[in-house]
């Protein structure tokens, strides 16, 4: 009784149309149907944030959104941040320089959350960054280097 449903998404600028299970989360649709594997499965509960992608510019937990629900949307994953030439964007570069990726498993989601945060265009102090990021878990870095990296782009350097 699997129902296939055709969904078209613009993923990192590329239009992808696929018929697949209507029950598929956006995360599974991206990973298993469209072979976009950079968003990660960490919990499926909307808690960890490893699956964070931008849907029409807004961060969502792709594990708890159905692909069918966001048909026709524009989806950006971390693989869409770098330029066509593969050059990392400013935030990615900051993550690199500050050592904000250890195992790197939270990184795809963390960077998307941070991208939206920084895109708000306001100066962010470290406490604000911490408060805004509480939905993205990292088990390796203690958040230190992540906050450092975001602060270096969006304001408040470490005192």
């Amino acid at each position, binding site marked *: *009784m699997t129902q296939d449903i055709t969904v078209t998404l613009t993923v990192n600028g590329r239009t992808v149309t696929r018929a697949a299970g209507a029950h598929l989360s956006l995360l599974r649709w991206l990973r298993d149907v469209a072979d976009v594997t950079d968003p990660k499965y960490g919990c499926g509960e909307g808690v960890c944030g490893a699956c964070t992608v931008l849907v029409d510019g807004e*961060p969502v*937990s792709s594990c*708890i959104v159905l692909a069918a629900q966001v048909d026709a949307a524009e989806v950006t994953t971390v693989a869409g941040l770098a330029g066509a030439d593969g050059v990392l964007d400013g935030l990615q570069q900051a993550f690199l320089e500050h050592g904000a990726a250890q195992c790197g498993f939270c990184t795809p989601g963390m960077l998307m959350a941070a991208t939206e945060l920084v895109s708000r265009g306001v100066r962010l102090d470290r406490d604000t960054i911490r408060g805004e990021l*509480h*939905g993205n878990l990292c088990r390796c870095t203690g958040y230190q280097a992540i906050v450092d990296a975001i602060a270096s782009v969006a304001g408040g350097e470490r005192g």
Partner: protein
Amino acid sequence: MFVKPFRYERASSVTEACALLREYDGEAKVIAGGQSLLPMINLGLVDPSAVVDISRIAGLDGVAERNGSLDVGALTRHRALEGDALVARHQPLLAEAVRSVGNTRVRNRGTLGGSLAHGDPAAELPLAMTVLEAEYEVSNGNATRTIAAGEFPLTYFTTQLAEDELLTGVRVPKLPAGWGWGFHEVSRRPGDFAVVAAAAVVRCRGGAIEDARVGLAGVSERPVRLTSVEAALAGVPVSQIEDVVGEVDAIEPITDTMASAGYRRRLARVLARRVLADACQRSEGAD
């Protein structure tokens, strides 16, 4: 993550959505933002044969001012509520409560109606609505009815909604002039479900309480108004709130992995006092 396949139906009107729900005869679940439903599906706690997506039904979102109230569409997202100018001006308690919901991603997708219909006894918005004495508009596609916020939740994750009904909108009275409000919650981590949340609106004059409404979430099978405390507070000097709000009875907290019943009782008392104190201060300030 390995869910049993289900069908997806997109409704373009309330009538269609309710017809679909009837067609599936209790086997379908309504989905809007999906922020409560999909985690439960992924965890295998529910496995519907279909979901009926109401998120694209026109006209069910946004905040409008009508007489002494705000009409809030059921599909209004938390993020929109959080930033809404009318809400900020006329019902700041609601704005504060919604800020405590989940994380950024949950607030982006999650809807007011979804949160209220989910019936989580620890959730912030049903508590706020109970204390603010809001009314819910409910439809089965043919007829509508109005239900008082305080009567809408029945028990854990169960509300008065019939299987073929949708919550379509909420009427929230504006905070009248001279009233103050308070909202506090304790959660284990920011964004987690509240262990206990408290909300109050109060009118004070000359350092004494004239009228008070106070409620708690996370301490019973549904949000509760502390009616006996409210009655006892009338005429009480603000400085004596602590004495009036002693041991909070009329609650039946449970022990779970977040907290014990005993700790919830402690928080009930502490947070009730805090929201009342804040509300009094704001009320006096508003005079």
